[in-house]
């Protein structure tokens, strides 16, 4: 059965867009932009402020991805799989934790920082927010790897391990950030614009205005 990309969300260069949703503010630093975007879209989830920057980016991407999509009504919580990837793992937070221990006279490791030194914690945050309980995995690739993500998500869908997938790339390093996440379903549920779930289409979307 063919699968389709029913929506996607791109956040980079201080611009966030998903379908008809769009917001940009190039006057602030990237990490501040995430907070601005959160406020702009009227999201109310105080835990957002406790998250590290990587989780904020992933969280925000999925918020926008699902804002106008009835994923919660269409699928059981265990049938939604979250398969994400990036290059830097949790490096941006690893550095913060490392700083808190590198000097014995200022030795203050914090559990609220340390927990974010694992990239899949972002998947946990998304699952808590949306009550998803299905398959999850975090992969590390040097660059966005459309061929692999397509291969693995297709396998999960073909084998009926999941019915719907949130997949893509959520990268955060000290210099930059970039998120491109996709909603993959068996058929288009909500819009007429059919985009086949193929590596070429994933790449085409990834390269949009970049």
């Amino acid at each position: 059965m063919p699968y389709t990309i029913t929506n996607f969300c791109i956040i980079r260069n201080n611009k966030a867009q998903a379908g008809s949703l769009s917001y940009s503010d190039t006057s602030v630093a990237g990490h501040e932009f995430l907070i601005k975007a959160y406020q702009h879209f009227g999201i109310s989830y105080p835990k957002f402020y406790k998250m590290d920057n990587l989780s904020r980016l992933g969280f925000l991407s999925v918020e926008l991805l699902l804002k106008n999509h009835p994923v919660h009504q269409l699928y059981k919580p265990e049938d939604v799989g979250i398969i994400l990837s990036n290059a830097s793992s949790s490096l941006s937070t690893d550095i913060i934790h490392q700083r808190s221990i590198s000097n014995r006279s200022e030795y203050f490791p914090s559990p609220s920082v340390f927990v974010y030194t694992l990239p899949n914690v972002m998947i946990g945050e998304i699952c808590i927010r949306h009550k998803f309980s299905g398959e999850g995995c975090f992969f590390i690739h040097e660059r966005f790897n459309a061929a692999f993500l397509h291969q693995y998500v297709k396998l999960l869908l073909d084998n009926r391990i999941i019915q719907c997938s949130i997949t893509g790339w959520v990268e955060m390093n000290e210099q930059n950030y970039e998120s491109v996440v996709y909603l993959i379903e068996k058929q288009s549920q909500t819009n007429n614009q059919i985009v086949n779930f193929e590596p070429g289409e994933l790449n085409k979307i990834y390269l949009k205005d970049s």
Partner: protein
Amino acid sequence: MKEIFAIADNIVTPLGFSTQENAANMLKNITGIRQWNDVQIAPEPFYASLIDDETLNQKFASFDDPARFTRFEKMIICSVKDALSNSNVDFTNKKTLFILSTTKGNIDLLEKNKMTVFGNERTSLWHTARLMKEYFSLYHMPLVVSNACISGLLAIIIGARLIRNGLFENVVINGSDIITEFVISGFNSFKSLSTGPCRPFDKTRDGLSLGEGSGTIILSSNRNRSAVPSSVCIGEGFSTNDANHISGPSRTGEGLFLAISKVLNAHAARISYISAHGTATLYNDEMESIAFTRAGLQNVPVNSFKGYWGHTLGAAGVIESAMAIYSLKNNLLLNTLGFNETGVSNPISVISKATPCKLENCLKVASGFGGCNAALLFYKA
């Protein structure tokens, strides 16, 4: 269902550099966990299972210059080489994939003095993948799974899925993690470290002991890739999320129960043995006892290997699965080192004495930060 065979394996811990060496020491109730008093790693003394640098370098020197590689990389190479030597899998072939599972990789390189020797990029896990591709002359770029403490088990599940769907014939899975100041300080900040060697499922358990390890399991759809035809198969496995809390397990064992239910649904078999995650924290062991009981498995013999080599993080799922495969092959249930009296509210059947027992299969489970859980069945061919 297409059969996938466990072809060969290896375990590198302070208890030895092969599965056999580890097993021999475990049967003598030897633990790799001891007290360390090293202010370079932690301001206070701590209990952990750490691999001796000198031993690692000696082993490594038999095939390469130890100075060219980091601790983490040397552990991977030692483990993979030993496992490969017991198989006839062509690692460089197009039909073979390498999956690396780790939580933190070369995390010690974030310490300034070490970074300068190896360079900035070396901390990245994609760089480790590249390095391994070059070192072993692999056809494909290795796949890197970094999914907290279920990484190893999840890597095996993914490897089996890729073979079952005809995408590869062989998958070599390595799980490795080193224990550094970074990791100790983090777990210590959570107050989850034990005051002595960890005591899984015990009444007096008070936390986990961290451990260094590297494990390798080679999977193939061709059972003759093994020197001795393989007798253990990899069944279905699943990962789930508690959707409850990022740093604590679900009080009701929701995610683990769901993962186990999916495995039991896919295999109509009676479970002969459970290899638990059993970290020896109050919450983890309690949560597992609830999940096992909810799944109707409270009378199935269960053990945790953490008392022998501690919690080896991203390596745990691989080295513990290698030991579970050993148990299946030898029809032997190993005792839960450190366990004396049940300290979980659901009375599960914790193995307290090594016991010969005819085993048909083993349910392996794992749970981790981010609310993730995984369960996988190993069974006899």
